[in-house]
């Protein structure tokens, strides 16, 4: 199964390894780091949407749980960041299971609102009960692994993109496994797949938890990288942004989520020079790409290549 993606894996890891050699500025590296963080969340949502046919507008909630739990544990209780990130992921999974029980019964727009509501509830909790309230808090320790402390932008770049890389391999393994086929069956027809003996609710819950874990890891990384967090980062706005990344990149492709995350993260930076008009231009670019690249960037691109052969 690895063979199918081998070429893509090799190209991807080569880009990751050599990118910092060509890009010296830590500004560009920082953009790439934020792109990596978003790619992680988008991958989770892509699994949920593209492969299990479920939509979520609450990913920022899990992102926030990851950031806050990990930051609090490492700052206030002195737990090493890597361990605290793992605990945060556990907390996020529990939250995902609690939400999944009622929410995954719902469909379409109702599911969207339920997840949106979840994200907003988490946001209110962070705002009211999080340390520092709406102002947030800082001095969060950097990540250290086996005695090595991640401080520079290059360090963080490698770390986040290697996490992305490993989780892509992991995700493709799931997709290509028996579970993956069952997932796609749900996407196509729920009643059909359950009559074929697939435990639909359980499978949906599993994918949902997985997407929450991805978002949580991204959140923990964000907290230990920026070293300052406040609730506004984890608002509904970010959930919608992640959804946009997945759709722009191509909801039916995991690579699409990564490409979408890179584009949507870098685009506002590229539009900086338009000042007042940047919101307008950003909106126009989104609209046009949705209109003309309906399947999303990556699937359209793949179709083109295949068509030429």
């Amino acid at each position, binding site marked *: 199964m690895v063979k199918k993606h081998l070429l893509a894996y090799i190209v991807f890891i080569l880009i990751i390894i050599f990118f910092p050699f060509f890009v010296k500025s830590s500004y560009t590296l920082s953009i790439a780091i934020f792109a990596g963080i978003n790619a992680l969340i988008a991958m989770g949502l892509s699994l949920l949407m593209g492969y299990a046919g479920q939509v979520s507008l609450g990913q920022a909630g899990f992102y926030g749980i990851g950031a806050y739990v990990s930051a609090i544990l490492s700052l206030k209780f002195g737990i090493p960041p890597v361990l605290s990130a793992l605990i945060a992921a556990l907390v996020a999974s529990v939250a995902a299971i609690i939400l999944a029980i009622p929410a995954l019964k719902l469909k379409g727009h*109702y599911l969207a609102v339920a997840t949106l509501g979840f994200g907003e509830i988490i946001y209110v909790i962070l705002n009211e009960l999080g340390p520092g309230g709406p102002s947030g808090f800082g001095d969060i320790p950097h990540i250290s692994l086996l005695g090595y402390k991640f401080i520079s932008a290059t360090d963080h770049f490698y770390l986040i993109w290697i996490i992305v890389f490993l989780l892509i391999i992991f995700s493709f393994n799931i997709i290509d496994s028996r579970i993956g086929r069952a997932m796609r069956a749900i996407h196509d027809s729920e009643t059909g797949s359950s009559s074929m003996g697939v435990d639909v609710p359980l499978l949906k819950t599993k994918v949902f938890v997985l997407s929450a874990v991805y978002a949580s890891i991204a959140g923990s990384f964000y907290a230990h990288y920026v070293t300052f967090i406040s609730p506004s980062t984890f608002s509904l706005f970010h959930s919608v942004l992640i*959804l946009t990344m997945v759709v722009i990149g191509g909801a039916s492709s995991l690579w699409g989520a990564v490409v979408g995350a890179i584009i949507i993260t870098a685009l506002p930076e590229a539009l900086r020079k338009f000042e007042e008009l940047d919101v307008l231009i950003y909106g*126009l670019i989104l*609209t046009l790409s949705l209109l003309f690249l309906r399947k999303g960037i990556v699937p359209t691109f793949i179709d083109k290549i295949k068509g030429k052969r």
Partner: protein
Amino acid sequence: MLTVLLQFLLSGITVGSIYALVGLGFNIIYNATSIINLAQGEFVVMGGLIMWFFSQSMQIPFFLSIVLTILVVGLIGLIMERLTINPLKNSDLLLMIMITVAVSIVFRGLLMYKFGKDPYNYPPFSEGEPFIIFGAVIQQQVLWVLFIALSCIGLIFFFFNRTMIGKAMSACAVNPTAAKLVGINVSRMIMLSFFLSAILGAIGGIAITPISLMEYDKGPALAVKGFCAAIMGGLGNGMGAVLGGFIIGVLETLTAGYIHSGFKDAVALVILLTILFFKPAGLFGNKSTLTVRKF
């Protein structure tokens, strides 16, 4: 103590009437297309800001300003449909919803460019002191909003159930192919639904601005509340959206009054989620809305 409770309820109705008007707008497009138009909040903002432009900046008389505002925003809704929804006719529902998100960003960009970031306000429809009911206070404008919301529901009900064109429109959502077969121009119906829903948004914006002020980026917050109201009442049900709006509004103010104002949004949402758990199609929703079309 009772006066205080009454005041909480009246404030709940004030806030709820705003959610109700916004929620109502979602239903028209939904009824014709199953799309949730996430640019609905921007129609409301446009209503308020363009009304300000006509009535305050251009000094055009009040009623004429309202008519002009409604027409301009309706036209914008129509153009939006032609340029972005119509070309995507046979695509994924999710793609169409995402494009409404993209369009809402374009709208915000335009509004910011034209109106800047300051809030805007104009005098309420009728001048005068607020009414006092058993010691509790309610603004006159709230009564206007209530009146307008109820009239809109009446008109919408009449339109969808008693007129040919309205019936044709609901047929499009239930089964577009069948609608086409019986000779309904589906594309035109969808265009009309955007026109109507933009108008409804504009009316909402015109009515609520004297209460809450209006600024270019209020759209998403309004849309979220209106969407929740529509969902709580059951998508596609106009009366449901209005009741949903009032329930959410009152829940918020009661939470603020008796628990803590910091948690008002969260408590209202927890209750919404609980309701959905027991009634997955909302309070007054039809089970059939669950199976219309999937993402």
